[in-house]
């Protein structure tokens, strides 16, 4: 995928530093953008700081207090320009309610966040392999 973007919504600074590091190590072709909360994320998707082109993939850390992930997901799913985005939810807690809500909103995957940097790299390596075997549309939406 050329010139494609990924948006990571994560309030934990240490975590997204780890994600960045993992992306570099496994040479992910996507450009990584980070939002610290859902408001910031929304601005990057549909507001003043809009990322162009619109990210094909959004990663949301849903258990963070400051990130109202389900709300963001809801907004993405009902927006005509955003609803086809592939959303992955990454979480550290087992919250069945969040999980059910996210699955109902047709996320591509509900996943446990790895604890350390090494596991993080493995995690994204698998995820990246997956991203590489799936097709994205080249057309504008």
């Amino acid at each position, binding site marked *: 995928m*050329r*010139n494609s973007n990924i948006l990571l919504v994560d309030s934990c600074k240490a975590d997204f530093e780890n994600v960045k590091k993992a992306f570099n190590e496994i040479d992910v072709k996507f450009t990584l953008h980070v939002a610290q909360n859902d408001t910031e994320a929304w601005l990057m998707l549909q507001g003043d700081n809009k990322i162009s*082109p619109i990210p094909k993939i959004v990663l949301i850390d849903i258990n963070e207090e400051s990130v109202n992930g389900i709300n963001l997901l809801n907004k993405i799913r009902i927006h005509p320009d955003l609803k086809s985005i592939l959303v992955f939810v990454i979480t550290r807690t087992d919250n069945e309610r969040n999980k059910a809500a996210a699955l109902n909103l047709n996320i591509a995957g509900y996943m446990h966040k790895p604890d350390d940097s090494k596991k993080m790299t493995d995690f994204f390596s698998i995820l990246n392999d997956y991203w590489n075997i799936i097709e994205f549309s*080249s*057309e*504008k939406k």
Partner: protein
Amino acid sequence: MKINPKPENEIERLKALEEYLIMDSLPEKEYDSITQLASYICGTPIALVSLIDERRQWSKSSVGLGVAETTRDLSFCQYAIMGEDVYEVNNALENELFAKNPLVTGNPNIRFYAGAPLKDANGFNLGSLCVIDTESRILSIEQKNALKLLANQVVLLLDSRKKNADLLKSQKEFQNFIELSKDLGCIANVDGFFYKVNSAFTDVLGYTKKELEGKPFIDFVHPDDLDKTLKEVEKLSKGEKTISFENRYRCKNGECILLSWNASPDPDTGNLYCIGRDITKEKKAELNLINSNKLLDESQSIAKIGSWKFDLITNDLIWSKGHYQIFDFEELPSDQLFNAYRNRIHPDDLLNLDKVLENTLTTGADLHYNHRILFPDGSSKYVVGIGKPHKNGKGEVVGIQGTIQDITDKTLAEQKIQEKAKEINDIKSALDESAIVAITDQKGIFSYVNENFCAVSKYSKEELIGQDQQIISTGYNSIEFRRDVFVTIANGNIWKGEVMNKAKDGSYYWESATIVPFLNEKGKPYQYVAISSNITKQKLAQENLNNALANLEKKNKELDQYAYIVSHDLKAPLRAINNLSEWIVEDMPEMPDAVSANFELLRGRIQRMENLINGVLEYSRIGRTEIEKETTDLKKMLNQIIDFVVPIEGFEISIADNMPIIETEKILLQQVFSNLISNSVKYNDKPIGKIECLYESLPDFHQFTVKDNGPGIAEEYHKKVFEVFQTIEARDKKESTGIGLSIVKKIIEEKGGSISIESENDNGTSFVFTLPK
């Protein structure tokens, strides 16, 4: 002697008598002394100085007779004036002429009479000096002579009296003359004082005689004219007999009047006799005349008018200044003017001018003419003239008077207007010839339609003029469309567009129309001119073309759809065959080498078929999907492609430094370059393959070149290589679908560019393509 005789010169005599003004005058002692002396000398009691007029005898002086007059027919004197000598009647009773005369028969009982005629210097016998007695008697010679001498004395008295009267009369007349004269008369003495002034003098100046007489005349001269006046007067002292000059005098009322003087000195006294005339009005009139002449000249000059007068008797031609100006002549003497005039008239106009002139001379009708003036420098003027003949008492034309006007400017302007009108007319006929033209008023009522309009609408002119243009309108045009047209033109703007109309037979026709509103002074349209061309055929052609294009598009779509479906349907079994072959090999580990080699070949063919199908799909997809443009750094993109398709060993690649960054459908351009570069790699036959990517910026296009040092492509294949499924080498030799260049060409042409090959066999190939900027 007959009774009551009359002298031969009686009429003149009576006239002469009258001039003496003696009849009925008062007694004068001079005459009385003479009658007394006569009575004494002749010894008669009665003596008379009697004068005879037409009817009576009147005594100027009498001695011894109370009666002063008697009728002529009874008069004795009437006989005395008939002769030169003394007339004597000695005894009246014995004279048949008087015997019965009452003066004889009755009182005073005359018996004797002797009368000497009073003969004046002119020989007229005015009357007589007579002596009378009541006794008959005879005068002695001496007495007779004395009587004659006394008669002469009476005539002298009469003459002297007459002269006196004449003198008084002429004095009186002269006085009157001076006093009644309207000219100012005065006598000034040597010291320059007024001595006498006449009534006119006082009347004109408003002073009384008293205020003038005894005053120096210089007191009354306008100060500015004093020097001039004194200088003139001085001339007289130098011996000039008369001087004439003008100066201004001050009136009592303060006004100044201009006087013209003639003055002469009396050589004896040195007194100045002066006659002056008030010429104030004349001067003013003269000035006015000069001014009005000047005005006339100027007016003529401004109006480019001239006037003329021709005297047929004297052949004198007179022109006004204006006339000269028009002809650009200096003033000429009358005898030269006529020829000069004729020479300057344009030769082509001379004949006609002579003709109208001849007409005026023979019929006496007014003269109307026009001609051109041809100047020596070749320039010309247009002139129009009118003239009126003068006729004598017999009705013969003796002269003509008239005016001319220079109408060059007007004529040229008219000619220009005519030219323009012709031009406009030409344009109009050209327009009528080529276009459909209609004019409507502001309400849309036809006021003009041309032949083309009638032809296309199938109405006659008569059917259209006065009709609303709705007659040709159709329901095809929407209300919005019609409102748009109306609003545009009603606001004074030109409307252009295509419109469908309906002909009389109900058929429709299309017009490409331009409607031009014509505006009145208020900026509101008062008429609309519509100029159109019939585009029905083009419209139909366009429609057909559109239909054909739509059909073609539909066909193409169907074809693409077909290719898509077929490809998918082909792909599935193909993949199944491939999978099955793989499983067979997998499931039979002990397969003989020949069999497994065949399986390899089988899979190779399956791969080729897959490639072909993918190629067809890709080809059919071009133009079907819309791809977003993005800013693309071509140098970067080419490097990525090269990394991907060019082996590291055996190739030298160069990318031009001027490779630009452009806004484009990146994926498509990537496809193009990938195909071209991978072709260069695939077919290269040199130990070191060289590939160059070049760029040139053309005015409207980007031009890219992919150049290699490969085997080259013979010219006969330059076209063919772009055709679908065309390969130059056998597919077994070089694995190729033959669709790559077709895709390249389709992409480039879809984007409005073009691609060509520059190649000589064995000398490499250059693919040169362009994309619009």
